[in-house]
């Protein structure tokens, strides 16, 4: 029991100080009939570090790691190269084993990092203020919808979701709306080269609190959001823009530039890694200073100490659950602090120049892949526009193709059938993501395997 420092002698001495005959006496408030006398049956006993590592390694070997495959999955989680120093820094005990910075005098490391992170996110999104992170992109999206309802003071009940919003994000919003009784207008996307922004605009009315669009969207398409922003604002609604690939913002306009009111997204691409879906990093930012007090989550702000030195603290805390309780803007407490650090370190290592280069390298390889796949008989590329992810149509059920290719260690992409199981019209769609980690050989491997499987 290598994590327990007390010795038997310590325990006896301490019991004596306490004045208890044995440790069970300390549990006397637990009703006797519920008190367990021995270790819970059916569970293994303690094990050495070596034995545990062996067990876990065996389980890990049952998975196909992305780096061991020709890998093309995206749909809200992207494989990027994370510089080695990122992992080194987040494993420093002072970051790894710290708590939420409630005692700012001894938490300036976390606080200054959060202030830098907030600034980086706000700039990337073209926003005024970003918070210190949420759980992930999907929950940040829901929190944005809830915030829009607060801004409308509960007087508007309709939420217009773009059909090209990630279906899991839409599901999270729908789940939560069941309980807040917001009305959700949503349909799955049509397989067209351009998103139906005018159809979306037509659904906005006076009862609409917000419009939610994804940029680039779930099919990888990139379009101008300004007309949607204008239409939303005309009806007194907020435009919420969701971004699931922050690297894209090194190449395309920020949502803030196009009139978004709230920008949320998934930060996993930078620093965090795939991790089978979590922990990830929810990003949340607003463009207007007047909305800051309606934001969920923690905010770090600049101030001075008693000697006039610059320092940082958590601030505007009266929005939060530990003070406002049932009137809080959100129930969130723990967020994704360490993932925020990883994101921040990665983006610091890139800098603006590096981020733009990274984005253009992703786009270059994606263009190459789209061109190569378009040459495969039976395959057509849907998109006119994309960043590092695009949709191809295979003319046959893409799920079966994905499974077949997985047997050859090719992870070909995310089938739209997996994302939209209820919509048979989308079943031949395959979402293909290409990043700087994808090689031209990988693309060739995928293309030739598709040729074989589809013929």
């Amino acid at each position, binding site marked *: 029991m290598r994590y327990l420092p007390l010795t038997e002698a310590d325990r006896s001495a301490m019991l004596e100080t306490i004045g208890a005959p044995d440790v069970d006496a300390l549990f006397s408030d637990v009703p006797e009939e519920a008190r367990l006398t021995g270790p819970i049956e059916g569970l293994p006993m303690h094990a050495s570090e070596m034995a545990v590592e062996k067990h876990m390694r065996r389980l890990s070997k049952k998975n196909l790691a992305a780096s061991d495959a020709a890998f093309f999955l995206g749909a809200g989680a992207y494989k990027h190269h994370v510089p080695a120093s990122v992992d080194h820094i987040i494993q420093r005990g002072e970051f790894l084993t710290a708590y939420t910075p409630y005692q700012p005098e001894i938490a300036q490391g976390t606080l200054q990092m959060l202030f830098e992170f907030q600034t980086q996110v706000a700039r990337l999104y073209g926003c005024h203020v970003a918070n210190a992170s949420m759980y992930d992109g999907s929950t940040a999206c829901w929190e944005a919808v809830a915030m829009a309802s607060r801004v409308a003071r509960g007087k508007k009940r309709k939420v217009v979701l773009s059909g090209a919003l990630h279906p899991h994000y839409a599901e999270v919003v729908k789940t939560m709306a069941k309980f807040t009784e917001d009305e959700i207008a949503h349909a799955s996307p049509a397989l067209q080269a351009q998103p139906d922004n005018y159809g979306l605009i037509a659904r906005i009315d006076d009862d609409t609190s917000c419009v939610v669009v994804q940029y680039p969207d779930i099919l990888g398409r990139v379009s101008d959001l300004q007309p949607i922003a204008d239409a939303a604002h005309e009806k007194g609604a907020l435009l919420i823009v969701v971004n699931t690939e922050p690297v894209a913002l090194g190449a395309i306009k920020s949502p803030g530039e196009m009139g978004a009111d709230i920008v949320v997204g998934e930060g996993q691409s930078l620093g965090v890694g795939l991790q089978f879906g979590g922990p990830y990093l929810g990003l949340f930012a607003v463009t207007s200073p007047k909305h800051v*007090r309606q934001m969920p989550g923690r905010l770090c702000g600049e101030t001075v100490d008693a000697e006039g030195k610059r320092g940082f603290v958590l601030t*505007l805390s*009266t929005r939060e659950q530990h*003070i*406002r309780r049932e*009137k809080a803007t959100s129930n969130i407490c723990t967020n994704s602090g360490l993932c925020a650090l990883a994101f921040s370190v990665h983006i610091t290592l890139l800098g603006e120049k590096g981020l733009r280069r990274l984005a253009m390298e992703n786009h270059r390889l994606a263009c190459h892949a789209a061109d190569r796949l378009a040459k495969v008989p039976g395959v057509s590329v849907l998109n006119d526009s994309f960043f590092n992810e695009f949709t191809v149509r295979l003319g046959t059920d893409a799920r079966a193709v994905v499974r077949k290719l997985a047997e050859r260690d090719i992870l070909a992409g995310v089938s739209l059938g997996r994302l939209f199981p209820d919509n048979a019209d989308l079943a031949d769609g395959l979402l293909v993501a290409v990043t700087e980690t994808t090689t031209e050989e990988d693309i060739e491997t995928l293309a030739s395997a598709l040729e074989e499987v589809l013929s």
Partner: protein
Amino acid sequence: MARYFTEEHEWIDLEGDTATVGITDYAQGQLGDIVFVELPESGTMLEKGKDAAVVESVKAASDVYAPISGEVTEANAALEDDPALVNTSPEEDGWFFRMTVSDKSQLEGLMDDKAYKSFCDEL
């Protein structure tokens, strides 16, 4: 002009049909440094005893209840930039909002200056 006080430490100045509402010096002293005041928008209908405003210090948010019923005609915009006015001039420049008075009888039973002072002394 008559000034009334409530047991919730609000003051009300009545001038004709318009009332100006704020919190008392005693209240601001209890709350400590005020960092933000959330005020009702003009046109909001307030009901006596229901939430009207929120006054915040660093670690607390306190609801301010409408002392009487009526419609808000003006919120004190100066508090937006300088919430500290509530600390430095609670009973003058740090007023919260102005409102119409739906029912003057609601003012009956409120305290005057002297009664409020002795009310505070007993706290």
